[in-house]
């Protein structure tokens, strides 16, 4: 290696590194002292970091570090803080009556916000993200309610579910009149057409209305009522309106009458805390169909 310190650049007066490209020489500009010191300090800092924070992977875990820090513990603290911040508001949700929650704009906003999130997590798989439901899963935006659409009734349904096995659950189901041999094929077709006529839908030519009414009175009226208006005590839907959970066409009705229906909704008591269930009830009620 040659000593280049004697090779001085005439313009800047600095020594060069001796590297030369097409006559252009590289000035020897060492790193500034402060930079070098900072660099060494970062190394020292890193060693300290290894000791105090989790750093080294072991076979099944890692070094814990003398500070005992873990980001998971941080999350727990953050969540606890969140609960603390929400504490007063959520307490208000827990103590206020359902009607009062809906009348208080601040509580309503809170219940709707909470309800929407919880709905998305727990209810949307069946009822849809917009609570619009699908075949067999009721649309919660409309004003047709199998088990009642008041705040209290909605809350009860959420708490205990439908045919959920909970002691207080809603029971009652549509029997399988065809499968169980109660009604014969032609009788099912006749009563299906009669049910269609209740809500003003067209009927099959040559259908015997009087016979249909008779079959209905003997087999269906016990739950659905003489006029077919339904019974929320039993979860029997109103057959005279425009809303059909399983479809209003003849084929669907025949299937319903033959095979029976009995959708299940789980009970949420025990899975969700009482304040959350109240928020849910208010949210569902406020979608627009609540009574």
């Amino acid at each position: 290696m040659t000593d280049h310190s004697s090779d001085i650049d005439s313009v800047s007066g600095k020594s060069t590194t001796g590297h030369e490209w097409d006559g252009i020489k590289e000035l020897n500009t060492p790193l500034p002292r402060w930079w070098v010191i900072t660099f060494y300090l970062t190394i020292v800092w890193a060693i300290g970091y290894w000791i105090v924070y989790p750093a080294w992977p072991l076979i099944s875990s890692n070094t814990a570090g003398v500070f005992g820090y873990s980001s998971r513990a941080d999350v727990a603290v953050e969540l606890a803080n969140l609960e603390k911040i929400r504490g007063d508001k959520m307490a208000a949700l827990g103590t206020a009556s359902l009607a009062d929650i809906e009348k208080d704009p601040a509580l309503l906003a809170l219940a709707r916000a909470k309800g929407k999130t919880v709905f998305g997590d727990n209810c949307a798989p069946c009822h849809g993200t917009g609570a619009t439901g699908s075949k067999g899963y009721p649309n919660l935006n409309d004003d047709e309610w199998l088990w009642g659409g008041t705040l209290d009734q909605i809350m009860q349904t959420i708490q205990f579910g439908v045919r959920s096995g909970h002691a207080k659950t809603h029971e009652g189901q549509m029997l399988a009149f065809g499968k169980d041999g109660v009604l014969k094929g032609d009788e099912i077709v006749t009563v299906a057409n009669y049910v269609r006529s209740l809500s003003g839908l067209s009927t099959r030519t040559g259908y015997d209305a009087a016979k249909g009414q008779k079959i209905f009175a003997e087999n269906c009226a016990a739950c659905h009522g003489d006029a077919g208006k339904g019974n929320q005590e039993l979860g029997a839907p109103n057959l005279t309106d425009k809303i059909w959970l399983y479809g209003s066409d003849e084929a669907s009705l025949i299937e319903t009458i033959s095979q029976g229906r009995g959708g299940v909704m789980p009970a949420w008591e025990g899975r969700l805390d009482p304040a959350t269930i109240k928020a849910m009830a208010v949210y569902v009620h406020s979608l627009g169909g609540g009574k």
Partner: protein
Amino acid sequence: MNKTVNPNELKPADDVGPLYAARKKVYPQSVSGTFRRIKWGLMAFCLGVYYFLPFVRWNRGLGAPSQAVLIDLPNSRFYFFFIELWPQEVYYFTGLLIVAAVALFLMNSIGGRIWCGYLCPQTVWTDLFYAVERLIEGDRRERMKKDASTDPMKLERISEIVLKHSIWLLIAWWTGGAWVLYFNDAPTLVKELVTFQAPMIAYIWIGILTATTYLLAGYMREQVCTYMCPWPRIQAALTDEWALNVTYRYDRGEKRTSVKKAAELRALGQQVGDCVDCYQCVAVCPTGIDIRNGPQMECIQCGLCIDACDNVMTKIGRPKRLIGYDNDINIHRRQEGKAPIYRIVRARTIVYSAIIAAVGGIMIYTLATRSLLDVNVLHDRNPVAVKLSDGSIRNAYTVRLLNKSGYDRVIAIDAEGPVNSTVHVVGVDSVTPDRPMIVIPRDATSELRLLVTAPAENNPEKSIPVHFHVTDIGLGIVASATDNFVSP
């Protein structure tokens, strides 16, 4: 074919050196005169406004902040005396910035760097820091001598330095302190600050602004103007030949001679310049330049050299304003024996004034006529429409009501859409079911869930517009918004 050049043969020119120029410390001398008085006055005014404005009170009624100028970040409100702005109205600041920029251009086309010389915070605080320095360490010569001295420091000199920096830090600290007072109720925050109850962010900001004030006004000074500020460059591009700038009138000043020599030559009837080369203009300059070299980017045009030169001219019995607000046109005219002309009104100044008037006018008009009641409507996306048991169709909307006034309002909501449609607000049992009436709190937004139901026989086939009208029952003010009514 080009001739091949051996790079080793290329010799740098003699004047090529490092691009870095070390700062030459400036020791401005004290001076008195017209422009110095203007500067003192403006300094007192600007600093007075800055330091004391947060303490000015303004009654906005119970529950509202009583500070005249307040930036309330937690509640997203900006208060300026009788004006209260919401976050969605920050576009007023755009107008304010346009006016500020064009006002700067207008000042520039009339009197050069008036902003730089008299009003810029950098100038004002640097001027104040120089005043403190001068008071404690003495004037130009004394300070130069003290700085150049290599003798070991005596207690007196050390105490001077400590005192100077203490006062600087005190001013800087007060500057940072005043800044945070614009963001919270000033008297309360002052109490909290002195009892160490104030939020940490307040102390952090005071710390930041103390540091910047101390560094910018105490150390960086004219370097901020010369190297950091973009305005000198922009200003040079925006000026024209009619703009009046602080100018050395070389038609009068040259040739420079001594007082004695000038008298002798004048006695002989010879032409002699008025400049006696006393360097007073250089001594007082806060940026350390010689104005006699012509207009320079470093010159902030504070006019102190005018004062310095005027004092000398008075002493030697020559007319004042050898340095004054002037331009090259007039210098040439005087050389030709013509009277100077000053053209303040010209295309440039007219256009600038017109822009200021137009933007200012639009701002005042929109501010004066803005509605203090507003409504925004958002249609539900999922589901867009719901069929009810009787065949009627229901659409749901999120309605956001903005009550910007200082009082609660009772409002009624009407929806003008499908025939015979009804309106219902979730959670509201209105005494008038067909026309929901609601109380909306003052200075707040209220969000409502609104349901519009069209009877089965009036179901629109396709999407039709719905107009929502929100009427203040007491005042009759109406705010409207339009959305659509959709059928499934």
